[in-house]
């Protein structure tokens, strides 16, 4: 590792010395390939979807994999199918999906918020004393390793099969990357910077505020991005088990499956994916806004 680090470091120093005035900009040719590649893969995926429907599925099974354009047409491009009309037992259309999205978004946002606050606090405490770190760490690993599904009956029985239970699933799923990345960021500040603070009589608090938190920001945002994605997973999965209250996207997927309205079900799945990607991109953007101007390794 160190043997590899050294030449890279000096090469970087030489590059920095020779191009003192201009920070490295991404080359222009990368601009086009950035879009062509992903679009081609997306095209392949859609083609495969049609292939599955037309070729792999036998006639009676074809409704299980409705073709993409029908899914988009029936669920996303249709505003509202009232319950009971057009043979629909659950209702459907974009309105229904947006309502589910809103419900899931609330669960995910609240769960993520709690996970961030709790995780941040925990990581900060752990960074301040080795004994705190050693005491808490094994249980975080355990929390991460234990299958969340095993807790479902427990959570449901104790706090009810409702909104709060769904939030709790989110917190449990989302907290680990925040703690791990924040702690890693806080602890991996170079010794030289700490000595600079010591020389100038910085208190623990000053050190944390002026050195450790800012230095940890890139790492914290990496954790936030992962956790934000996980919180959406938590919200959708929580829906499968805790069904009281406003139906979220997970609940809709359930209902549509039960009523064999597969176009609508696929629509709900797509909507969950959109929510996850949206949250992921948003935190990536936020991270870039906060540390992009000084942190070299962040890319869009």
């Amino acid at each position, binding site marked *: 590792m160190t043997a590899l680090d050294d030449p890279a470091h000096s090469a970087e*120093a*030489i590059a*920095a*010395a*020779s191009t*003192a*005035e*201009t*920070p490295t900009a991404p080359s222009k040719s990368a601009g086009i390939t950035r879009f062509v590649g992903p679009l081609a893969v997306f095209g392949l995926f859609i083609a495969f979807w049609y292939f599955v429907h037309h070729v792999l599925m036998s006639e009676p099974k074809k409704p299980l994999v409705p073709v993409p354009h029908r899914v988009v047409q029936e669920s996303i491009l249709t505003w509202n199918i009232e319950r009971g009309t057009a043979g629909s037992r659950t209702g459907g259309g974009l309105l229904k999906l947006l309502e589910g999205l809103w419900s899931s978004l609330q669960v995910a946002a609240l769960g993520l918020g709690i996970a961030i606050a709790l995780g941040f606090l925990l990581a900060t405490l752990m960074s301040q004393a080795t004994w705190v770190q050693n005491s808490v760490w094994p249980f975080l690993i355990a929390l991460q390793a234990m299958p969340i599904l095993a807790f479902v009956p427990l959570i449901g029985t104790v706090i009810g099969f409702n909104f709060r239970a769904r939030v709790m699933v989110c917190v449990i799923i989302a907290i680990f990357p925040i703690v791990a990345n924040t702690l890693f960021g806080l602890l991996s500040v*170079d010794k*030289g*910077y700490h*000595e*600079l*603070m*010591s*020389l*100038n*009589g*910085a208190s623990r608090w*000053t050190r944390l505020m*002026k*050195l450790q938190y*800012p*230095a940890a*920001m890139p790492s914290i945002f990496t954790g936030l991005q992962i956790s934000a994605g996980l919180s959406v997973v938590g919200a959708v999965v929580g829906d499968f088990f805790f069904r009281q209250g406003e139906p979220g996207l997970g609940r809709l997927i359930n209902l549509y499956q039960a009523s064999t309205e597969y176009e609508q079900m696929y629509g709900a799945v797509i909507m969950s994916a959109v929510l996850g990607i949206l949250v992921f991109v948003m935190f990536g953007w936020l991270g870039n806004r906060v*540390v992009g*101007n*000084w*942190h*070299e390794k962040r890319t869009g």
Partner: protein
Amino acid sequence: MTTQPVAEPTHPEESGGPGPALVFDELSMVFPDGTHALDNVSFSVDRGEFVTVVGPSGCGKSTLLRIASGLEQHADGGCVVDRDSIGYVFQDATLFPWRTVRKNVELIAELHGESSAAMASRVDESLELVNLDEHQDKYPRQLSGGMRMRASLARSLVLQPNVFLFDEPFGALDEISRERLNDELLSLFKAKNFAGLFITHSIAEAVFLSTRVLVMSARPGRIVADYEVPFEYPRSHDLRYEPAFAELSGKISHDLRGAHP
């Protein structure tokens, strides 16, 4: 535990009184793991003196600076210095990447609780002294290695310390940047008249900068040779190619070879 910071006024103008700014008195140092780092080192540095210590790798040169600054606390014997008036320049520039050059220069003053209005003019002056005033709004990653080092120097200058400790600050720079920074450091030294203690591996750098060069032996570090450098300041760039310069460098090189185990 006889390392005693003495109470001295922190303003350089008022502390030009008698007595050296930095004194090592029969200083020995054994690390808790048993490594014998320094053995009975005694010398002092006055304001207006620039002392450089050269020696083999791992001989304890840097430990001297760490003891003087208080980063190392297991020393046996004396080190007397006003800890509130030390500028410490590290091997790395240790600039905060999330702060602009100017914000980095403000850092130390900030840590000492100075208001930003009070420090503004001294920050301006420091940036001008190292020729970085035009680059003050850049981030460290936008600077060359030499510019980063100059920003690091400017940061230490803001509090106008009496004593400057340099821990191989230019070791990672290319030859041309290093010589240019040597020139600049000398004009800083003449302008500010601080007491300088400099650590380096480069004999040419040592002779060019210093009023006095000390040669340290391999571990445990002892002072084995002590040279007054006779050249007048201001020293021009071409001093490096004069016979007297080469002669002194040769002597130091000879002693240094003897100092290796």
